[in-house]
């Protein structure tokens, strides 16, 4: 399929998965007739009925908790959390229940539940609507944490997530929801969420995911003008991290910068820096640098450009890296 937006690619993945397996259900707030506030679930209710596309009461803990119960009964629920910041009322069910069930039952009972979370800023939204909470989930064992950055991956990752026997949190970048691209519906033949080298380069590497992939590509392009050949890696999977690809990339480029909208302190970049520091000791030409949101709350929308990392900050980090 050519020229689908991320939203349409996700929608198509849901249509396909629901058609292929009657056990796949969609639930969340406004996912039914309305098709979700971002229209990711558009048309599902008409196609598969109210029984399989469930407009839930307004309660995120209830959404995740009942999704767990549905999975116990043999279904594969795909839950939508309307915006990033709203996942916290359901956080206990994720951390203490969803993520633990397989361990708690000595491996007997896995929970094939997908939680879709539109995330990230840059869309001029109100408080709690521009968050990047992925680090909270990366620190939680028992979850797969994915993020897509383009229509192809949106489609592929969501199909893989639904097929996964364990819980998957899929972070969908709101700021890229309307970006268009080709979608090959068969998807690449890769382990779920393998990292992807979006732009190969030799001199330095930008490790990123979600909305910042675009920003990093812009920065890499600008850097090319200055004669720097910068690689951009879309991590796609934040848990587990595809360390083989990441290490290989660090080995080749010897300069690594991690870029994300999540906050600096204990954001994903902290783990990457810690691992690479140890695993690549002596093999890098500069410390792993991090370009991230400040360690504050998200600002009022009209100030968000001064909060979100942009290509300038990435270029500045590249300069700093090359200065070592």
């Amino acid at each position, binding site marked *: 399929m050519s020229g689908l937006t991320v939203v349409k690619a996700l929608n198509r993945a849901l249509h396909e998965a629901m058609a292929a397996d009657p056990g796949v259900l969609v639930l969340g*707030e*406004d996912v*039914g*007739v*309305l*098709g979700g*506030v971002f229209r990711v679930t558009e048309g599902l209710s008409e196609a598969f009925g109210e029984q399989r596309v469930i*407009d*839930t*009461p*307004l*309660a995120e*803990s*209830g959404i995740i908790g009942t999704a767990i119960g549905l999975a116990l009964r043999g279904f594969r629920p795909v839950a939508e959390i309307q915006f990033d*910041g*709203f996942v*916290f*009322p359901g956080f206990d069910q994720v951390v203490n229940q969803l993520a633990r069930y397989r361990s708690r039952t000595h491996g007997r009972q896995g929970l094939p539940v997908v939680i879709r979370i539109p995330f990230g800023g840059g869309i*001029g*939204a*109100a*408080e*709690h*609507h521009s968050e990047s909470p992925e680090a909270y989930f990366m620190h939680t064992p028992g979850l797969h944490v994915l993020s897509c950055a383009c229509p192809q991956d949106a489609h592929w990752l969501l199909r893989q997530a639904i097929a996964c026997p364990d819980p998957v949190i899929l972070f969908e970048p709101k700021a890229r929801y309307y970006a268009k691209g080709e979608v090959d519906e068969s998807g690449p033949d890769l382990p779920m969420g393998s990292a992807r080298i979006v732009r190969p380069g030799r001199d330095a590497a930008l490790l990123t995911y979600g909305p910042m992939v675009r920003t990093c590509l812009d920065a890499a392009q600008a850097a090319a003008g200055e004669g720097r050949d910068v690689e951009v890696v879309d991590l796609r999977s934040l848990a587990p991290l595809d360390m083989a690809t990441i290490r290989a990339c660090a080995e080749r480029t010897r300069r690594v910068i991690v870029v994300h909208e999540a906050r*600096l*302190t204990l954001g994903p970049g902290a783990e990457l820096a810690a691992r690479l520091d140890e695993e690549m000791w002596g093999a890098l030409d500069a410390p792993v640098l991090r370009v991230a949101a*400040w*360690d*504050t*709350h*998200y*600002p*009022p*929308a*009209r*100030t*968000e*450009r*001064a*909060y979100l990392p*942009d290509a*300038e*900050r990435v270029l*500045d980090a590249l300069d700093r890296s090359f200065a070592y």
Partner: protein
Amino acid sequence: MVDIEDPTQPVRLLTPEGELVEDPRFRWRGGDGSLVEMLRGMRRGRRFDVEGAALQRHGELGLWPPLVGQEGYQAGIAAALNPADMVFATYREQSLALAMGVSPADILALWRGAGLSRWDSAATRMAPYSLIIGSHPLHAVGYALGVALGRAGDGPAPATLAVYGDGASSQGDVNEALVFAAARRAPVVFCCVNNGWAISEPVTRQSPIPLYQRAHGFGIPGIRVDGNDPLACAAVMDWALGRARAGSPVLVEALTYRMGAHTTSDDPGRYRSDELTRQWAGRDPIERLQTHLLARGLVDRPWLEALDAELDDFGAEVRRTCRELVDTPIERVFDDLLVEPGAHLAEQRAECLDWLSTVPGSTVPGEEVGA
């Protein structure tokens, strides 16, 4: 004795046609002057809403949550509140917020993305907005428990009011608020605004039974009022707040209707019929009070024309205010975080301002507003 929780009819004192009716439980005790004030407040609220929606269309605001049709209970609450009472409400109680003295500038700043809850909540008695649906009634209950502990100790104990929607009623936090209020007899009034919808979901998706009955399961009296009848709302709220001040929690369900979209981002045509909206148009809170006041000669055409002119001025002022809003400078995310944020944040602050100073056309730290 009259059963105050009689479920058959919501409390109503003024019909949609503008006629006074008797209710065995409640009477309107305010003077005629306050009726006129209520009309003015509702008209002001609606005008603010019209301006807000227009400003959003013109790109001046990021979002606007229409309140049209919901001015009635807000006027009733405003009329019943004592100055020391404290209100925790939602983004759709803008008319009430204005009545309590929150400035249009502060509300506009929030929807413009120029600020968050900038207003002085201690002075206005209007708490900041929490956009996590259902999270604030617990704050209200805590505040009320604090009142009961009597630390302030001056004057009559104020009541605390938690206003939230039919959708919010499903959140665990709202139910925990009822648990805490009941268990410790918090001097709090819960006002559940049932406007029929939580975005695209009709209230039947939240509850098979009327929401005022939710209270009964927690040991709290619950009562339903015609939320488009400002007189009934004022009378019921007056009773409820009084009861709270005397130490007993109570829940009031205000039955109303969201005439507009959920927000300016929403398209209600996708999920509901105009038919229902048309029915509710006949129960407009402003119409009925205006008809009533005209009939009784408490206002007349010239008065209304004068009000129109006043509101035109208000509207112009709102637009001007919006244009003049100054964005919150980015350094406030650092400065407002903690009294002692530590060295690392200070470094980030410096790095941030440094970066901005090098980016051409970036937000130059603006002038201080709102604090």
